[in-house]
């Protein structure tokens, strides 16, 4: 079939529009199951300036058609990350997107500065994690805060800056516009919804942290709606995620306006999900007579 899959994202040429959603992809674990070279980009788990232990367990709960997690941005810190993951990723010919976490504005700035010294291709600023008390989502649900953080981080980031948005807001467009006006080069959406599950036999929440981030196929309708709304309102490119499981799901987000798409929860359940989705997307194009993936972006009115 041989379709044109390459897309340009923040001025960078990507082999194809498929990447992995942060926190659902581990370079070493996943490289056992598929060839990372096949992806347009890989996005790795949120990294902070220092190691974070994350939240107590249980951190994972299943829900109908989805899951909850309260991993809480457990990460080994930027130094270990550069030494291990980044070093490992050097052997692959794919763009590397690094998701950054912080508790304070200074934290974010610091990680960005450190990443500026590396060969990382793009930085994804996570101001939308529902699993950390300070930072994370508190930055992401108020338009003024979003502007402030993005502006400060942008100044200190060498790479193109993607800002990852929380869906737990009344008006996603307002937040997206704030990020755009503060200098974001692209937007990622959606991060997880805030959810809860109770074990009625133990009479307590399934997650030790009580509430957690809700993801998976169940959330897709919310994600598609937000990508569609933001695409209509903003002009910077979108990296979309939220329940993508098939090539048709990927096409759905691209038609809603996304330039790139990421598989998230799917990577945990089918470890080769990103390449399966890529193959299915190509097959979908073949079936419907699309030669170049860029033809269908944002075609929904």
């Amino acid at each position, binding site marked *: 079939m041989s379709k044109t899959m390459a897309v340009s994202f923040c001025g960078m040429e990507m082999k194809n529009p498929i990447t992995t959603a942060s926190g659902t992809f581990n370079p070493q674990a996943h490289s056992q199951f598929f060839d990372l070279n096949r992806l347009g980009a890989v996005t790795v788990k949120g990294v902070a300036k220092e190691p974070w232990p994350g939240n107590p367990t249980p951190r994972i709960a299943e829900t109908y*058609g989805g899951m909850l997690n309260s991993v809480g941005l*457990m990460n080994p810190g930027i130094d270990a990350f550069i030494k291990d993951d980044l070093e490992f990723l050097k052997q692959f010919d794919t763009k590397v997107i690094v998701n950054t976490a912080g508790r304070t504005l200074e934290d974010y700035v610091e990680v960005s500065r450190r990443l500026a010294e590396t060969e990382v291709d793009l930085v994804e600023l996570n101001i939308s994690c529902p699993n950390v008390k300070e930072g994370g989502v508190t930055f992401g649900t108020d338009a003024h805060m979003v502007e402030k953080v993005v502006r400060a981080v942008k100044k200190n980031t060498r790479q193109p800056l993607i800002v990852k948005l929380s869906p737990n807001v009344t008006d996603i467009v307002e937040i997206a516009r704030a990020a755009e006006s503060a200098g974001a080069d692209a937007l990622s959406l959606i991060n997880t919804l805030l959810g809860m599950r109770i074990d009625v036999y133990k009479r307590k929440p399934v997650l030790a942290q009580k509430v957690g981030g809700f993801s998976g196929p169940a959330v897709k309708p919310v994600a598609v709606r937000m990508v569609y709304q933001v695409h209509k309102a903003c002009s910077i490119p979108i990296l979309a995620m939220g329940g993508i499981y098939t090539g048709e799901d990927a096409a759905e987000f691209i038609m809603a306006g996304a330039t790139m798409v990421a598989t998230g929860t799917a990577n945990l359940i089918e470890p080769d999900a990103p390449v399966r989705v890529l193959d299915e997307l190509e097959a979908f194009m073949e079936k419907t007579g699309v030669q170049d993936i860029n033809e269908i972006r944002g075609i929904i009115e």
Partner: protein
Amino acid sequence: MTMWNDGVAIKEQVELAPGIYRMELFAPELVAQAKPGQFVNLYCRDKSRLLPRPISICDAIVETGRLVLIYAVVGKGTEELSAMGEGDTIRVMGPLGNGFPLEAATEAKEIFLVGGGLGMPPMLFLAKALSDKPLKIFLGFRSQPWMGQEFEPWGEVMGSSDDGTYGCKGTVIDAMNLYLQHADLAARRVLYACGPIPMMRAIQQWQQGQNLETWFSLEERMGCGFGACAGCPAKLRMPDGSVIQKGVCKLGPVFPGEDVIFS
């Protein structure tokens, strides 16, 4: 290499006791690599349930390619599994985890295998692997046993049950104490255990001051089972007092018993 196969054939399924099932799968490649203490992920057919169901390998028979699993029905996923039978296929990933360190047994004078409840099945595979060693196998039940005889060819089996129906009345700790009354306390022993947290916590306390090296197989809620989601950390206390975290799925599920911090 971790196998990941959508169409693994179920060869047999029997209900051992009310709500406890034994399933045999035909998975020769997976079986060829399996080590005691490793587990597999089973996936539901009903796609409203997406996460894996981790189940320990109870036996892996290279000659026949059979993978044996024993599990209890505790929720919708295991209920779905229990309704399957010969002729059905299932998605399986594995073997996962590192399993029990068999080397640890080399120097020991005696090896204790301790299984409690649904922690028992993986001890069978371990018993077979260590059958040339002096094995003392302690099996703890609430009441009626639904397993036990399978262990007899591989070592000396000592049962216990809360109500005295099977073996000595009490826990595996009582059974071990009973055994040790007539044994050389100073001898170097290695203990491998899998069972409910209260059992393992009790073993951890009990082991203090003994010449005993322990290895515990842990459970944790899992998102992936292969090290990708950071969902399943165990907390371990290091010799220097610091606390570290290691993923149960990838770096476990077996950890040095003394280090484990039960929350």
